[in-house]
């Protein structure tokens, strides 16, 4: 479980973009909705321990992450993977990208490649595995970043707008894959697409101007919110 307690965060000075956030990301899928600039990306990056909050606590499995020493931090970080909203790929081939996280975790190349093939098959990207990343379309890039994260099989999965730029059938595919993991993992998805994601959500958070305006079960989400945000 990831617990955010009284989180305040600002990029510059006292300009808070997250204001006193309290949430638990628990097993299942938490969908984070909210207008542009409401703080979804910032929230997910705090929850993935990439940003240190100005105030407040980030608890991963009941441990306060920012109090850990460097070695323990790495151990905890390896339980969590965040997928950027803007797909960032490394130089080299698609395969190189997908195996990166496994290689630095000490997997052998062969093992890593085997896992990479498996996830690529699921995401339907085996045909581009040997392509150089500069040549990919934006949707392909997105799928590669998803494969690179999913292959790590982490307990925590934080996806920032994972289905943007995807064709409806591919979107369906990604949603299905995420759904299939919902019983074992803690998953959070920030999205502007409530229609595709609410059906798999266990919990919905609505952010506005850095504050949580609503946390509820998806079936309790009032139509008005979906229409408004």
């Amino acid at each position, binding site marked *: 479980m990831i617990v955010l307690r009284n989180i305040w965060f600002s990029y510059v000075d006292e300009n808070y973009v997250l204001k006193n956030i309290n949430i638990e990301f628990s097993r299942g899928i938490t969908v984070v909705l909210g207008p542009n600039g409401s703080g979804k990306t910032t929230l997910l*990056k705090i929850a*993935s321990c*990439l940003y240190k909050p100005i105030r407040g606590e980030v608890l991963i499995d009941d441990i306060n992450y920012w109090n850990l020493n*460097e070695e323990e931090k*790495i151990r905890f*970080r*390896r339980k*969590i*993977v*965040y997928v*950027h909203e803007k797909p*960032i790929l*490394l*130089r080299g081939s698609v395969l190189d990208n997908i195996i*990166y*996280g496994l290689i*630095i*975790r000490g997997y052998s190349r062969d093992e890593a490649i085997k896992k990479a093939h498996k996830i690529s098959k699921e995401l339907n990207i085996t045909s581009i595995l040997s392509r150089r990343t500069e040549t990919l379309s934006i949707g392909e890039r997105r799928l590669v970043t998803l494969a*690179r*994260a999913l292959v*790590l099989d982490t307990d925590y999965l934080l996806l920032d707008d994972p289905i943007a730029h995807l064709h409806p059938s591919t979107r369906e595919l990604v949603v299905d894959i995420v759904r299939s993991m919902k019983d074992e993992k803690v998953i959070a998805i920030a999205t502007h697409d409530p229609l595709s994601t609410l059906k798999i959500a266990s919990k919905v958070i609505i952010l506005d101007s850095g504050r949580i305006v609503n946390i509820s079960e998806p079936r309790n989400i009032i139509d008005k919110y979906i229409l408004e945000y």
Partner: protein
Amino acid sequence: MYTEIYGIALRSLLISSTATLLALVWSIPFTAKLISIRHRSKDIIIGIFNTLIGLPTVLVGLVLYLLFSYSGPLGFLELLYTPYTIIIGESILITPLVISLLYEVFSRAYNEYWELALTLGADKLQAYKLIIREVISDIFVVSLISFSRAIGELGVALIVGGNIKGYTRVFTTAIALEIEKGEFETAIILGLLLFIVVLSVILTARIIKRRV
């Protein structure tokens, strides 16, 4: 004459490329560290280096001379008037330029790749490695530009190198000497050679930059 010109050319290339490498050796970890600071002091530090790019070469030469002269604090090393002091001097001279250029390259890389590396499970060392791998060709361009500044400077080479024939004489000091002697032909040949070296270095940098 030509064997001497050849020797000067070779020596210049060797001294300045070593100086560039040396400057990179401390500038890369320093800039990487600087990038990761999340504090206003970062802007101040990089501002200082930006300003120091314009440091007069004779000033660096003078300071080094005082340090390495036989009565200076580092005089016991007996490095004055050797190629080694030119290397040290040029590397110090170009360090502000190297750091300023690297800073641009690294901050772009840091904003994207650092976070990426961390979330994919990298430790700090692995994250630095990833960033460096992503920016290696940019670093190469930075070194070419810095090298051309090093090979073209006169102050340091003259003051701490001493322009000793066959030992510390490089392009710029040789040209200055030949002009002083009135040997314009040799000066022009040397000048053209230096020009060709610098031009090809800059062109290479441009080509690499466009490819990336």
